[in-house]
């Protein structure tokens, strides 16, 4: 973050991805020019897609969505054509750490839950359900995997 004669410029850096913002376009332009001189950079213009998050800018405000991320993940986990569900967790179901058959592919379980955790960035409605299933990362069992699948079906609802 830097204060200039005109106002302020802010840079967010994620390894090789940068977001630049500020209260005046003159400084933003100057900063971009400077960066392009010092490093080999690609100017992607207005912020649209950052870390799997789509950003839609409008005069009314901004939309953050992970629609494409969610679609990619659904296809990766073979859930593309699944029947959408409007509630993320089954009601009155108690999930236990030591009930049910063990899941064979524990890596897959962890991977799906990891993706779901990332989806919370724009989908706060997922947080409770994801919090529940993430407790069983150590030794996932069949009922836990069912719950995870249900969350995926919930994600596909309204996509």
């Amino acid at each position, binding site marked *: 973050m830097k204060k200039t004669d005109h106002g302020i410029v*802010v840079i*967010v850096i994620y*390894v090789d991805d*940068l977001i630049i913002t500020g209260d005046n376009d003159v400084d933003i332009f100057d900063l971009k020019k400077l960066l392009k001189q010092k490093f*080999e950079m*690609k100017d*992607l213009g207005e912020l649209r*897609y950052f*870390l799997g998050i789509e950003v839609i800018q409008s005069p009314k405000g901004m939309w953050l969505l992970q629609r494409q991320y969610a*679609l990619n993940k659904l296809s990766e986990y073979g859930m593309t054509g699944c029947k959408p569900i409007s509630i993320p967790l089954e009601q009155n179901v108690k999930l236990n750490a030591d009930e049910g058959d063990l899941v064979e592919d524990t890596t897959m379980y962890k991977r799906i839950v990891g993706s779901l955790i990332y989806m919370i960035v724009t989908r706060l409605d997922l947080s409770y359900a994801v919090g529940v299933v993430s407790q069983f990362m150590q030794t996932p069992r069949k009922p836990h995997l069912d719950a995870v699948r249900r969350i995926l079906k919930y994600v596909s609802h309204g996509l």
Partner: protein
Amino acid sequence: MQEVEPTCFEQAAKNPKWDNAMDEEMAALDANATWELVVLLKDKKTIGCKWVYKVKHNADGSVSIYKTRLVAKGYAQTYGIEYEETYSLITKMTTVRLIIAMAATKGWSLHQMDVKNVFLHGDLQDEMYMEQPPGYVDQTHLNLVYRLKKVLYNLK
């Protein structure tokens, strides 16, 4: 819809798209004086390297680029000998959201840039030797290794 990503050089070499991408990566590495070919001294060790392949998609799901990276097998490095401190620039998601929210409330414009070949910008402090990459071994200098001068992905 989803294209299969190769897991090793032998698979990728068959596809011209990946072949081109690898040529470009090698050219970028050479151009930036990442390394030099040297004779390996007796008491020095080398680390391996491999290619990784990734199909990058646009927000609408279409293929944007075929990306390859040459990565060092950094897991073979020993703490205290080949590397000491590790550090990487990462932003917390909350910070990203904060900045976007700030821009939204203040009506600021948001812009985006990215750096091509980030690793080319870091000088390497320690003495490191690496085998020549799969598919790009200098046939006239088979026994030589690369002495790294710049940082490569997966190096600690």
